[in-house]
């Protein structure tokens, strides 16, 4: 029987907070978002997501002293910590999620959240709960699928036209401003990779990992995609 589980990275709550922050912080235009998934053949695994704003820490620190910018409220450190804790709490309550860990470094502005998942479905459930709670449509634009029988791992990703419109509102210089902002995704497997579809992704030397590092602006403007289909050995 074909078992296809939908997967969505588990940290949507975290993404919501961070995305809101990033879109408003025109100035904090240098950042790295790193998502690492270690997937076992049975569909369980470990995920860690890191937002690193240390390249822009001076600007972020200055901005956080302001209450709002361009009419959008800037969260305080306490508010961000509260949001992260709420996300972690929700993560802990999600069936199939365990070993939830998080770290915050407000000197370098780095936030890291990680957890184990017993099956990919648990992560999807978590993201759906959060998306529903915060009335976001993020879960619709980014979905994972894994078929343990065919050993096919697939990520579907659709850039929202809304992102582009919002990004354009920030001003004409933003392409240059965000030139140093990247989204990195690493997926590691226990089995070797036979093939992968994304032309911008690289396969590790041991053939058990795929790295995809894309400029943030390319994702917003739809020049690149996070979508990928990875086939593993049987």
């Amino acid at each position, binding site marked *: 029987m074909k078992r296809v589980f939908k997967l969505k990275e588990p940290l949507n709550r975290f993404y919501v907070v961070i995305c809101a922050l990033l879109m408003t912080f025109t*100035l904090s235009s240098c950042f790295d978002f790193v998502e*690492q998934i270690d997937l076992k053949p049975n569909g369980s695994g470990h995920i860690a997501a890191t937002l*690193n704003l240390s390249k822009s820490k*001076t600007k972020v620190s200055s901005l956080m002293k302001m209450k709002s910018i361009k009419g959008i409220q800037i969260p305080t450190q306490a508010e961000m910590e509260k949001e992260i804790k709420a996300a972690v709490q929700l993560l802990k309550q999600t069936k199939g999620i365990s070993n939830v860990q998080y770290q915050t470094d407000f000197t370098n502005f780095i936030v890291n959240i990680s957890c184990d998942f017993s099956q990919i479905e648990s992560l999807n459930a978590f993201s759906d709960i959060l998306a529903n709670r915060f009335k976001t449509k993020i879960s619709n634009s980014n979905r994972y699928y894994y078929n343990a029988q065919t050993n096919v791992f697939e990520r579907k990703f659709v850039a929202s036209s809304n992102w582009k419109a919002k990004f354009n509102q*920030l001003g004409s210089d*933003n392409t240059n401003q965000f030139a140093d902002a990247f989204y990195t995704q690493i997926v590691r497997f226990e089995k070797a990779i036979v093939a992968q579809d994304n032309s911008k992704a690289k396969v590790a030397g041991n053939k058990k990992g795929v790295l995809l590092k894309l400029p943030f602006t390319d994702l917003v403007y739809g020049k690149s995609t996070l979508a990928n289909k990875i086939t593993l050995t049987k």
Partner: protein
Amino acid sequence: MKSKILLTGLACLSLMGTVKSQDLVKLIPADAEIIAAFNVKDIVQKANANKLNELLQKAGLFKQFEKSGASVGNDIKNLGIDLTQTAYFYNRKTDSVSFLEFIFPLSNKVQFEKLLHEVGEPKSFANGYSSIGMKAGSVLVYNDRVARFISSTMSTTFFENDSVANRYGIKKVAYMAPAADAYSPELDSTTAVVDSATAAVMAWDEDEKVPEPLSPPVIVESVPDTVVAQLEEIEPVSAEIAAAEATVAAIEPVEMHDPGYYDSLYTEYENQNRKNDSIRNALRDKWLLGEATRLLSASYKPLSVSDQEKVLKNLGLIRLYVPHVEELYRGLIPYKTIPYLYMGINMDKFKTGYQDGMLDLLQDGNVLRLRGSVGLDRDLAEMSKRLYARKPNGKFNKYLTDKTLGFFNVNINSEAYLRDMPSYTAKYYSGLLGPQQDLVEWGLMALEVALDEKAIAQVMPGDHLFVVNGLRKFRKEYIDYSYDDDYNATEVKKTKDETLPVFIWMFTSKDQRLFRKGLDLAVSKTFGKMQDGIYAFSSKKGLDFPMYVLLKDDLVMVSNDSLSLHDIRQNKTAGSANKDFIKLMKQNKMSAAIDLQKLPAMLKEMGVSPGKQWEQTMAQLNQYGSTAITSKGIVGNRMEAEISTKLPETKEGAIGYMIDQILREIGK
């Protein structure tokens, strides 16, 4: 001879203008709270009449007049308003109602009347004035030379007092009546209210009362301030209303489960509210009528001659004048509220020492100024003079250079401050302290005795300069990731250059022992280090940038840039003197200024994009000059302050430029 006659004629004309203006200012009553004077002649001249016409045309004002049948030909000169005189606005408050009046001179009554065709038919009012009823609660009265728009608004709290509400027949109603079995002392008082209401309620219309055009008044005087006076005006209750009240009272209690019961409750609630509104509106209109009558018959005390002078003397474009700042302040704070009473705070004893206040909008070529001043009582003026008796350190000058983006300077005599502040606080604020007054006064006295003002004044006399001198690239560490062949990530530290503004905060200190000892202690505890005579503290949590401190001559300097302090230490000149900024600093007790021309380039260099909507504004900033906030401290017995902006140079000056900007925005 001819020129003498001409000069005399001109002098007479200008004197006539003044006399006319003074005539109108006399129309303002002595108890006006806030007065505004509009120098219409100057405004029209400086705004450029053609531009003003274009602006009003685009705003649709002329079209509105044309609709009412007036032929104004897109020219403000055809409105019938005298554009060579001063117009006034003021407000006056009583405990029950607040009035505002706008007084503007007319040059052509017939032309002016044509503008009002749509509003209504003018009627003869009193003292040679005609009137036109405007929206509810306001009236326009005018004669050949002046038009007066008077408006009234009821106080929101006046009728909250039960006895006042009862006297006027206003019944306080709740949507849901209290439970029948629960005893409420209000029940008895409700009965009382009904009784008094019965005595007071007139035959109010159910609908909102639409004020009719005012007819010649029959009431000689209406003084809304005094409740008792109004009692005499209240008409007796009509027999029908009394009968209706009696019928309602006689109705048996309705079953609570009957849905109709709730409907009837709501209807009753709505009906009573409508009645209350009718009473309030009728009172408001009656009081408005009384006020208009009083003003037109000149049976009021006009603004004192000295206040008239203060309104008109050296009038720029617009002046806002508050004759009694302290009273206005008292009126704004809810000092009779329960928390204040509970804490024993007696606001009646609260004094500010402020007298009159003035705010002027002025145009000086391409510079637009907002100048404010507050009159101080003798003691406060004397003390303030002592507080501001300090000049900036002459050595500050060389740090205001052509690279300076902006600065902030303040000069306070800290010795006088420490000496006078306890007695000042005791004198002006002790009334606020309630039962703690004696204790706090004792504490203040102890503080006064304990502090050695002279010694502290040696450590920090009170002159400070904060200056932003250009940008510099700072090397910053950040966290990145490196990946091995199998894409296992590890954290690595990298560095990058960031362009940031360089600031220096400096102040005079003739006795630097305290600072030196403290800094040495910090270094010995490894919180910082000493490099080439400069104390350095690295950035940590709570400190976004490294901090450097230099003690040089009689100055203490704190900066985020060690190179700047090194240059200062070695007496290297940072740039040529910024004479404008130096002049601003020297001429004022407090000054802050920013050179807007430098801002766009600076933001660009920092990689800051202010956003699409600000792009055009940022591009225009290149043509601007400095924007400054300054205060000369105490001049005479007044505390003065000013905000000024140097706009781009144009033929018409600042106001003309601003109208151009508005026209451009409308045209988009």
